[in-house]
């Protein structure tokens, strides 16, 4: 009927499929396995049953289900696991990916639409994967006069900085990649990198629209960093620490949002600005400047920037949870971890598995993670909400808001905190503890 759709032949399809499988196997054995072994080499090798767990041993033991768990446990002890998987990148990327899907569905619901629908049969749940595949397979186009090294590196740096931000976030008691004493200051330091990456990438594209967008982003981020920092000083005054874990622990009875609602509001507003989300998405104001500093990105570079910005979204939401909503604190709703598993072992059919202690996956950790995730998703939803409600603000009004109103409000917040400390209500040796 038409000349566009090629004719389908099953034999060719099967042949191409076998071809593909063959090459996958070849490439995996030639490149993948060595990479796996190299990675295993860098994992700190534990001693199990008086034997040093070499990669070879680990690989052979993996066949024996009773020995799998110790290996996984030893893996969970490593920094590698923390950085890549649980409190670090993997967990955050999972939440960020979920955020993208939630955002689209949520916004669609508010706008009386359907949102992603077809990909993945059930309400378009695989849409994100489809988008990712599309972005990966697209050609990366670089402007001819672009400054290529910076242009290439900027998206990677953006994701890297976002990942560094994530590494400072404590998810559950003891579960944080980098537990710094100066955690909050480190957060400020990391936030400072984003405008630089933005301005560099927009400059390197050598095009008018990205540059105007980049300059706007720069103005916005830099001018909102000040109320961001000031709004958090109240908490520092009250807790007397910069360590994020200690800040969470100080909220076991009361969340700081109760005492500092103004600070929370200011911080939330600055989050919106730092994330370039509506109503502060001036850098991407499409009716004036096409897509802001993202105009010239294409293919996976755009995908990386999007990944980075959603990681940033997660990180800021998590920071809000930690600072104002009590982090992982919450009533124990996770059922107690059965002691029998630790002592008796699991009986599954013919195999009885003895697990000599699983100190990592205990009740507190799971409960904390649960509460943290619930609160963070709640904050993310509230961050997403303005996108459906507000129009874009103008640049001068934005700066006016940042410099006049928010800074004033954050000083009010600081004075409230100081008053609480001097009145002896809160802080070291206060009435409420």
């Amino acid at each position, binding site marked *: 009927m038409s000349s566009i759709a090629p004719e389908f032949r099953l034999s060719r399809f099967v042949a191409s499929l076998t071809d593909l499988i063959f090459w996958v196997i070849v490439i995996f054995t030639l490149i993948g396995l060595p990479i796996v072994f190299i990675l295993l080499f860098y994992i700190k090798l534990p001693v199990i049953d008086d034997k040093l767990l070499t990669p070879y041993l680990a690989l052979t033991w993996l066949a024996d289900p009773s020995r799998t768990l110790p290996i996984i446990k030893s893996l969970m002890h490593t920094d590698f696991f923390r950085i890549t998987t649980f409190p670090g990148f993997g967990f955050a990327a999972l939440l960020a990916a979920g955020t993208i899907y939630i955002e689209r569905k949520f916004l669609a619901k508010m706008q009386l639409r359907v949102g992603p629908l077809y990909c993945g049969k059930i309400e378009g749940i695989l849409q994100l994967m489809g988008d990712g595949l599309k972005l990966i397979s697209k050609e990366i186009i670089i402007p001819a006069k672009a*400054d290529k090294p*910076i242009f290439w590196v900027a998206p990677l740096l953006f994701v890297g900085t976002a990942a560094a931000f994530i590494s400072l976030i404590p998810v559950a008691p003891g579960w944080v990649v980098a537990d*710094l*004493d*100066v955690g909050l*200051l*480190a957060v*400020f*330091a990391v*936030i*400072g*990198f984003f*405008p*630089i990456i933005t*301005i*560099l990438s927009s*400059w390197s594209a050598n095009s008018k629209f990205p*540059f105007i967008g980049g*300059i706007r982003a*720069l103005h916005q981020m*830099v001018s909102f*960093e000040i109320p961001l920092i000031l709004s958090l000083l109240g908490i520092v005054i009250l807790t007397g620490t910069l360590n994020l874990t200690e800040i969470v622990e100080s909220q076991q009875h009361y969340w700081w949002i109760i005492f500092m609602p103004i600070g929370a509001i200011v911080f939330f507003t600055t989050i919106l600005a730092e994330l370039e989300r509506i109503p502060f998405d001036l850098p991407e104001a499409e009716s004036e400047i096409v897509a802001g500093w993202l105009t010239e990105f294409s293919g996976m570079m755009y995908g990386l920037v999007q990944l980075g910005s959603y990681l940033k979204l997660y990180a800021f939401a998590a920071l809000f949870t930690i600072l104002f909503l009590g982090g992982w604190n919450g009533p124990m709703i996770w059922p107690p971890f059965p002691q029998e598993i630790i002592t008796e072992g699991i009986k599954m059919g013919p195999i009885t598995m003895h697990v000599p202690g699983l100190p990592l996956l205990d009740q507190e950790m799971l409960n904390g993670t649960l509460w943290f995730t619930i609160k963070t998703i709640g904050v993310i939803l509230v961050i997403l909400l303005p996108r459906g409600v507000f129009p874009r603000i103008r640049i*001068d009004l934005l700066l*006016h808001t940042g410099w*006049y109103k928010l800074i004033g409000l954050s000083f009010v917040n600081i004075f409230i905190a100081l008053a609480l400390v001097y009145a002896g209500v809160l802080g070291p040796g206060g009435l409420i503890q």
Partner: protein
Amino acid sequence: MADAVFLAISVLTIGSAIAALEIRSMIYGSIALMVTLAGVAGFFLLLDAPFVAMFQISVYVGSIAVLILFTVMLVRRELIFNKIEDPRRRYAGIGLMIVIMLGIGTIIIGSGIKSMEVDAPAVDFREIGKDFLTYYSPALVVMGLILASAVIGALTLARREDVTDEQRTD
């Protein structure tokens, strides 16, 4: 391990310091300067002063580097690249650099700071806050005046005069 890290950071710092001055494109020069500053922050971390390190990164990367990049991008594209200098002055400069390095280096190596003991515990950064509020409190006030004057002055200088005030909303 620490030695390797130290070596890496020092090579990075000094190399990028030279690059910041010598690289042709001024944007790359600014990036190299940022690397230098970050390297110094790395030294601070090695020296158990995380507070100063984070402060350094926040201030230098968060504000100074942005300002420098902004200024560099403001100037015309052809000015972003260096002019070729007078080679005589260049050799004189290199000579001066070597003289200073050797001279002060000899003084330092010859002096006794090698023998200073190193087992003192690192200073807790909470001490800094106490210092600020007790001994250095007048200096802190004056510091505030400095920042105020810098902000007032920089704003007044960078403000464009030919746009009338009616056109500004605020």
